[in-house]
């Protein structure tokens, strides 16, 4: 099992928003849902490798800033054209005000 990595402080992300997190040569997107839960996925859209952190979060959907590919960031499921490959998701927990991601 790999370690939990601190991505940011819980207050760094607004509700219903996303931010970028880079670690160990990889890039991730960390989300805070409207109901105040945290989630993490790979950072790049599976369509054209555009970073999702510039995209719009609405409810449980992240939309790619370039071509509007949509994913459910809680499950990683691709939601229709132009994306067809799901996003990888990672376990997240909040501990002492820090958002921790388990990077497998």
């Amino acid at each position, binding site marked *: 099992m790999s370690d939990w990595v601190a991505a940011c402080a819980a207050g760094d992300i607004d509700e219903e928003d996303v931010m970028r997190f880079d670690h160990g040569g990889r890039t991730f997107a960390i989300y805070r849902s409207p109901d105040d839960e945290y989630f993490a996925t790979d950072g790049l859209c599976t369509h054209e490798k555009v970073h999702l952190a510039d995209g719009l979060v609405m409810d449980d959907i992240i939309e790619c800033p*370039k071509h509007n590919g949509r994913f459910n960031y809680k499950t990683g499921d691709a939601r229709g054209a*132009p994306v067809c490959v799901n996003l990888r998701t990672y376990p997240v927990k909040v501990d002492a005000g820090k958002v921790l991601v388990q990077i497998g």
Partner: protein
Amino acid sequence: MARGMVIVGAGECGGRAALALRDLGYEGPVTLVGDEPHPPYERPPLSKDAMVSDAPEIRAIASDEVLAEKSIRHIHSVQAVAIDREAHKVRLSDGSVLPYDKLLLATGSTPRKLPMPGLGRRCVYLRTFADALAIRAHLRAGRRVAIVGGGFIGLELAAAARKLGAAVTVIEAQPRILMRGVPAEIAEIIHDAHVAEGVDILCCDGIASIADDGNEVRVTLAGGREIVADLAIIGIGAVPVTGLAAEAGLVIDNGIAVDAELRTGDPDIFAAGDCCSFPLAVYGGRRVRLEAWRNAQEQGALAARNMLGAGEAHAAVPWFWSDQYGLSLQIAGLADEGRSIVRRDLGDGAFILFHLAEDGRLVAASGIGPGNAVARDIRLAEMLIAKRAQPAPEALGSQAIKLKSLLAA
């Protein structure tokens, strides 16, 4: 037995329509007819990433394997030459005949030809992957490229050509680049970026003559200036491909005229994408034709739903983007519907212009900035436009007020 669905045109729109028919559970025959040898592929990279790649590759929307797996028959490298509406049949250039229950015309658009003599093999247009490869072969240090037309295709190619080290001159007859649909304030930033990268932009000067001896192109401008280039790329807009529809007696009005459900005057024939003009609900039914990737994609999927009887009206807000150097531009809505402009600065030089109608309704938003800096707010603006919102100009102009908060209002 079902005659099935025939789609003429195997580009973004046709390809998406074919996939959508299967996604919707349609089990009858689906036939996709295209005049290129490739499976449906994405065209936007042709003037962008693919053009600067050492070995440009097709980005397929559905590979041959996927088409086979979904039982979508793809007849490639042929033209549809006639529609027999009464018999519900399409005749192809190889002599074969395809019966249909519903027919979708997704014939796209084709580059507008420069109407003057003197063009030869060094004068080229960009539409297809084959066109892109031919242009790519010329783009390298030491080559001189003349680009006729300061629109998106021309400017994206200018950026690509500079990246590859070619010398580039852009010739635009209008007073500035991007006259159509892009506010002057944004066009100026793109203009400056090109100049900073070493592109020579000549505005306000039409072409008097072109001489192409097969190795070199000599472009003489009305003002007397002469540009000598190894390659002239002509990007002066596109025209809808409507010949097949016109021959079949369908109404043509700046494209194949369809209703909000993308149906032509013939209840069994639909048209979608670049080739059609349609009423845009969000602007009171104003008839428009869009040459845009997302529109092709959305209308392809909508046509598929309506071919299966959904009866759903097109309700999307026009949207497109362009990438040049490190800049990305995005426009949602039709800027010419606006009467006043509110500017919102986003930092890092990125900003958005909100276009408001006389009654204060938000009708368009044009943004530019590095990377994808404007994407999120443009997307929110698009939702506000769709809602026919009348946001307070002060709120639009203030970075302190989140656009998302205006959506709830």
